[in-house]
């Protein structure tokens, strides 16, 4: 079992803590996405996992061996990891087959074994016919596949992927997302996938680690991140979430009654939620709608309506709190004039737990 155990990992650059006591346990065979805005420290985490950097505090354990600590650092070439680099880093002076077989050559495998395993790895990504090409003759998507095959051929215990789709155009991304899922299923390798794109992370990962300003803010399954964000940052970051101030939190079994701009609503909350005078509520756009005639909602003043084809995006200011701008999706055939006052209903929400 090659679980990865990261404990209290910190890294400083010039006195600034770019990674701050991060702790995670990644189970063998899991597909993990590390998600965060640019500059949050996710690349530093990858470089620590790979062994290119040494931590200032904490340890990384790979299987039953501590590979990173302040005192000792197993160099990358001795870690049995694989990396798919953002720009693929294919060696331009070697053919596709030589790129893929390089790790085996270094490991001293026989020529026959090397050819066989390179061919197998290329077959997994559907590139066996291009083995003799030079990387410069390949398209972006093909290079990506070669980089994956190169990683695969070495049979690493962990595969690290550094924003592998960032350099591809939009339709190729969708195709490659499918490729990654298939690839993971096929190989069963532990994969750590670094990205700033939350839809990519949601689509691919078993679990997502959200990192913000060097801290691990939540490490959960995509569904839990979306439905039960543990902090305002996660609530806003995932699925274009919106955050509303609510008053008068009254726990009620595994839910809670809260007052949203003076109207009581029943929303989801964690079991241990306490009675509170105020809280923040995570609401997704899909859970907000125009009130039907006679239904009770809160009032808002329409700022702007953008036609999006299958719906209209309505940006409005809450009348009770004029600084707060929210967005809902209305049916495209309902005409909503700007400056109009609308009534808004909330069908679902989640009380963000009080900060620890």
């Amino acid at each position, binding site marked *: 079992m090659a679980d990865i155990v990261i404990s209290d990992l910190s890294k400083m650059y010039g006195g600034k803590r770019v990674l701050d006591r991060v702790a995670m346990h990644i189970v063998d065979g899991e597909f993990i996405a590390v998600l965060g805005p640019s500059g949050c420290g996710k690349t530093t985490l990858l470089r620590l996992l*790979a062994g*290119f950097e*040494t931590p200032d505090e904490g340890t990384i354990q790979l299987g039953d061996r501590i590979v990173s600590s*302040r*005192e*000792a*650092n197993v*160099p*990358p*070439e*001795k*870690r*049995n*990891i*694989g*990396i798919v*680099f*953002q*720009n693929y*880093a*294919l*060696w*331009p*002076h070697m053919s596709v087959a030589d790129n893929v077989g*390089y*790790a085996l050559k*270094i*490991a001293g495998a026989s020529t026959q074994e090397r050819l066989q395993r390179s061919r197998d790895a290329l077959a997994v990504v559907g590139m066996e016919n291009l083995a003799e090409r030079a990387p410069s003759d390949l398209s972006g998507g093909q290079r990506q596949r070669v980089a994956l095959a*190169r990683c695969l051929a*070495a049979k690493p215990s962990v595969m690290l992927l550094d924003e592998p789709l960032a350099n591809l155009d939009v339709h190729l991304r969708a195709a490659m997302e499918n490729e990654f899922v298939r690839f993971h299923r096929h190989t069963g390798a532990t994969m750590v996938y670094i990205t700033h794109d939350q839809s990519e992370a949601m689509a691919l990962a078993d679990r997502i680690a959200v990192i913000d300003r060097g801290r691990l803010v939540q490490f959960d399954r995509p569904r839990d991140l979306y439905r039960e964000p543990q902090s305002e940052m996660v609530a806003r970051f995932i699925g274009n979430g919106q955050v509303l101030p609510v008053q008068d939190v009254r726990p009620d079994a595994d839910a809670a009654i809260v007052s949203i701009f003076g109207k009581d609503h029943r929303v989801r909350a964690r079991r241990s939620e306490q009675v509170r005078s105020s809280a923040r509520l995570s609401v997704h756009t899909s859970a907000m709608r125009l009130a039907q005639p006679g239904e009770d909602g809160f009032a808002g003043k329409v700022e702007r309506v953008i036609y999006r084809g299958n719906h209209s995006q309505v940006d409005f200011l809450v009348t009770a709190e004029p600084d707060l701008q929210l967005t809902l999706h209305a049916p495209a055939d309902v005409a909503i004039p700007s400056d109009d006052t609308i009534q808004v209903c909330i069908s679902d929400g989640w009380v963000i737990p009080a900060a620890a």
Partner: protein
Amino acid sequence: MALIAMEKVEERRRLPALLPKAEWVVLGLLVIFVAGLSFAPLLRLAITAIAPAGVIDLGHVAELLWKKKVLTASTNTLVVALLSTLLAMVLGTVAAALTVLTDMRFKTAWVFAFVLPLMIPPQVTALAWVQAFSPSSPVLGLLGLSLHDGGRHPLYSPGGIILLLGFYHAPLVFLTVRAALRRLPAELVEAARAAGATSWPLIFTIILPLARAGLFAGAALAFVSSISNFGIQAMLGIPARYPTLITLIYQQMNSYGPSALADMAVLALLLSILTIVGVAISGWLGQRGDVRVDGIGRSLEIRLGRWRPIVEAVSWLFIVLTMALPLSALVATSVVTGFGQELSWKTLTLVNYANALVHQASIRNAFLTSLLLTSITVAILMIVSLFMAYFIVWKRGPLVRVLHLFSELTYALPGIILAVAMILFFLRPLPVLGFSIYGTVWIILAAYLSSFLALALRPVLGGFAQIDRAMEEAAQVAGAGFLARMRDVIIPLVAPAAVAGGVMVFMSALNEIQVSILLVSSNVRTIGPMVVFLEEGGSSTLAAAVGCLMIAAVLILMLAATCFSRYLPKGVLPWQN
């Protein structure tokens, strides 16, 4: 106990990466290389100058520097260096402006012809000029002109030295100014045009001020090269009895041998200080109120209109006068049996070439020695620079910076200073081996390795900067150790840059004179100083033949490098437009 424990922690902090062994071994070898060939000799020079008897003795230094001979030589050095730098700045800037900014035709050919003199050894250039303007010049004779006989040769004068140094170093200024002009963002020029500036005001109010940093960078190079240009200063200054610091050092060493070393160390130190101060001042002038701008310049084309044929004619006339005329005089001299003999089909002879290549053992051996020394130097420096650039670009750290600094220092300092330092350092028998390499070919090799390291290193640094570090990291992740990564991934990728560096070193070292002039002995001679010895000995025609052979070697190398230029990083071959 506590103290020991703390020391250990400190050590860890300084070396956090815990690099694998091979990397440390290589870094250690590089440190020994630079320390033994650059740092220690220069340190030895400084100590000998300031404290010849083991204690600091500034009184002796002051007394020596106050001698009339030394004062005159210092003044002369400054005069020729400053005035020739000024000339080079004017010529280089005009040339760069013409080729980058105007619609002059045949630019590629002109740039090649303008930069070519830089590749020709200065002692050969000086010889060519001397022969072109001598009263019995074969070329002037052909043109029906002649200088009146009697009296001194017009170039054996301070003016002659300044003129030749200025012409010789104009390409240096040209290259840096051209680079600066090419970097100018086109928007700045377009904005000025929109504000109503026409071509000429545009050049003087916008373009040249913005290219100032490049101009002074070139000026610094020209100044340093003028101070240390032994070839021209010796060929013209010694007959003119116009001593400069380097010719003074040369003559004193010739007259008194190693016993004059302590005093020469003082002069060498003075020369290094002049060099460093000169570089510092032009650096300051270039940076003051720095307005460095970088962008992808779209080329601006100032239309010369009806002036174009005139400008073109003048610029080609310049090439004819400063290059074609002296070189043809050199060639003409090399194919007659006696200097001053009229050139005709009857007098035409290849006997000088036969003597140089076959009959005269000393010249033939000098050619072979230079070829051998240069080849060994190139081979060693290519390997050293590949590894050193790896540490400089990708590993950084204070130790590596010091290594880089010393490699640049031994390149920038006048070669004759390095030669004095080398003699001082290697005069005594080597430890363990028990013999001295002074007077042998090995001291010249040591000096070449030290002097040309920076030249080999520069293109490789550029090569490393162009490749993505992820290339190496990918190999590391694949399990390759340091040496395997070097062999399989890094060296194949930067090899073209290393070859470019090797070519530059080959061209510079093959005909080199500054460093070897003090290191050659009666047994071991290189070809660079040969021209000076032959000319001093009165064999002008033989000297001319040797000079022509040296130029031919340079041209062949340039041609070969040009053929490979598409594999080389952009901008490493200075003569390409």
